[in-house]
């Protein structure tokens, strides 16, 4: 079996439930066979602007209206498109697992805690109501510490469509709605967005290495500090 999310699964297989809990969230994210390299040092490379992040109307997990723009400015943002019924192992469960790892790192990193934001946006608003997202977030988010992590949905697919189109996030219904991977087919998309709302990186299968995402976040923060000194 070759699944790049083995980092997420291996402890379950190898060490049993209790020890897996410890290993899943080790402060140091280890190099492994799926990401068999040392990530570049933060600030040793640049992240050119891809394009501006879109705006659009959303609902938070309490049912309150908000605009995507409000979530893509002011902090360095890692934005993941998901749907909670997804069971494709290399897609939403993996992406949420990576955000969880990053969130956990931010618990002990005050810079990440105050400068980074995580967003999980559902593209399945008919099913992923604010109530369901609230329950989902309870399952995956550590409460009360670490960086901000928002779970949002929308009133309707029509209202969400411009955001999906602007983010090049394709979503199709599977022919078999009872497909074990979930009723929707989609490509994995996770975005890195700077404080000015500009997309600076796009991750998918094969590149959503939490070590790279953290290096990228820190690269943007270092870029800000260099600019402010000039």
């Amino acid at each position, binding site marked *: 079996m*070759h699944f790049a999310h083995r980092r997420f699964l291996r402890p379950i297989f190898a060490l049993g439930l209790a020890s897996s809990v410890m290993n*899943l969230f080790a402060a140091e994210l280890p190099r492994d066979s799926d990401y068999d*390299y040392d990530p570049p040092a933060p600030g040793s490379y640049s992240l050119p602007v891809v394009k501006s992040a879109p705006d659009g109307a959303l609902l938070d997990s309490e049912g309150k209206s908000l605009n995507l723009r409000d979530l893509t400015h002011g902090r360095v943002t890692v934005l993941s498109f998901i749907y909670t019924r997804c069971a494709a192992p290399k897609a939403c469960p993996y992406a949420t697992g990576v955000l969880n790892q990053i969130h956990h790192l931010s618990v002990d990193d005050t810079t990440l805690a105050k400068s980074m934001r995580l967003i999980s946006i559902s593209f399945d608003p008919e099913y992923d109501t604010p109530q369901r997202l609230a329950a989902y977030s309870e399952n995956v988010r550590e409460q009360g510490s670490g960086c901000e992590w928002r779970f949002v949905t929308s009133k309707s697919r029509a209202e969400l469509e411009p955001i999906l189109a602007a983010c090049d996030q394709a979503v199709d219904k599977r022919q078999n709605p009872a497909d*074990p991977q979930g009723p929707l087919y989609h490509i994995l998309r996770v975005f890195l967005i700077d404080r000015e709302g500009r997309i600076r990186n796009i991750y*998918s299968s094969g*590149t959503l290495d939490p070590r790279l995402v953290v290096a990228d976040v820190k690269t943007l923060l270092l870029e800000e500090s260099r600019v402010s000194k000039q």
Partner: protein
Amino acid sequence: MKTPTNCQLHTVKISLAVVIGALILTLNARVSRADETCSSPYLARIDGQEEFVYVWTLGVEGMGDGADKLVTVDVKPGSPGYGKVISSSSVDGRNEAHHGGFADDRRQLWLAGLESSRVFIFDVHSDPAKPKLTKTIDNFAETTGGAVGPHGAYALPGRVLIPCLSNAKDKGGKTALVEYSNDGNYITTHWLPTKEDAHGASGAEFADGYGYDARVLPRKNALLTSSFTGWNNYTMDFGKLTADPEAMKHFGSTMVMWDFHARQPKKVFQVPGAPLEIRWAWGDKHNYAFTATALTSKLWLVYQDDRGEWQAKEVAPIGEAKGGVLPVDISISADDKTLFVDSFGDGKCRVFDVSDPQKPKQIYEKQIGKQVNMVSQSWDGKRLYFTSSLLARWDKQGADNEQFLRGYAWDGKELKQAFDLDFTALKLGRPHHMLFGSTKIGANRTTVASK
């Protein structure tokens, strides 16, 4: 040591669900083996067998409409249209149609023109049987800061990597890698390392700045590039070029290993004779790639040694030891055991056993035509497709100028022809790069990379 939180325990529950899903996917994966073995690992893959072969075709003056075109051929098993052209979409004029590639979600096919530096973006999602031109990038040199000769398009997450062959300043071989977002907006340009500006790479003394192919091994964060020649040479008549000693000096003799994520060159390898196509092995622990050198007719291996250092070495001759067969495209099987090598000079496909990548052995050869260039192989290794054209001014003349798409079946021992399309008789032009299409697109290749 930290104690587990509620969050962590809940995540374990999610993980168990994921395990079950993973097992289901593994079972599914056993019956879903299709697609090309040379495509980007970031590309959404075809579920089942390919249904269409898209052929990026050079226009020929006085033949049909004379324009470059995307030709779609039906290859669905049992289809009444099997092996026949089912659609053709022309672009503006002749651009030296060369290579192309899909965006990562496989909704767009990007096709490049080497001479005009225009890039044509087709929608292959709305109707995969009838691709439609939706956008043309016609300011490539101005936008990219002087890169010209876009060679193809390689899917990266949310963006497309375009390795180039030349530059606007002197139209020689110094060139760049260019990135565009999937919606066709320019992002950035990375110039290949030169002796004068190696960007910190080791082996700077070899650096020539030339480019050709660019391909990624994700789990090693490795981007590998190869090198060919510039606009001045690839637009020159082939006979005139080979008779010009000065022009023949201007071919690439390097490959470069990059830190893919940082887009920084790390090591320049001396690989004489224009190393062209790069094919990374797919196996979980196969840290190597093959290339073939056009001018010296050799197979080269770029591999990670026991110390984790990347190395390049010549591993086999292609054809007679004296060379001269002009190897062009290569295709590795999904199990990493077999390498198909096309040679333009003698029109043959040679098949190598590369089970031991350090010691390739030729096991078979087949005369495909009087000239042959590209080869595309299905993921299950059972079907191969060949086309004939290399470059408009380098193709053979007279009766040797066969222009075809030929489909073959491979049984592990020999190639048997399944269909033959004469692109001259059909008044289509010179067929070049092939890409597979389907109405059934699944997950990213990285999900089921190797087994």
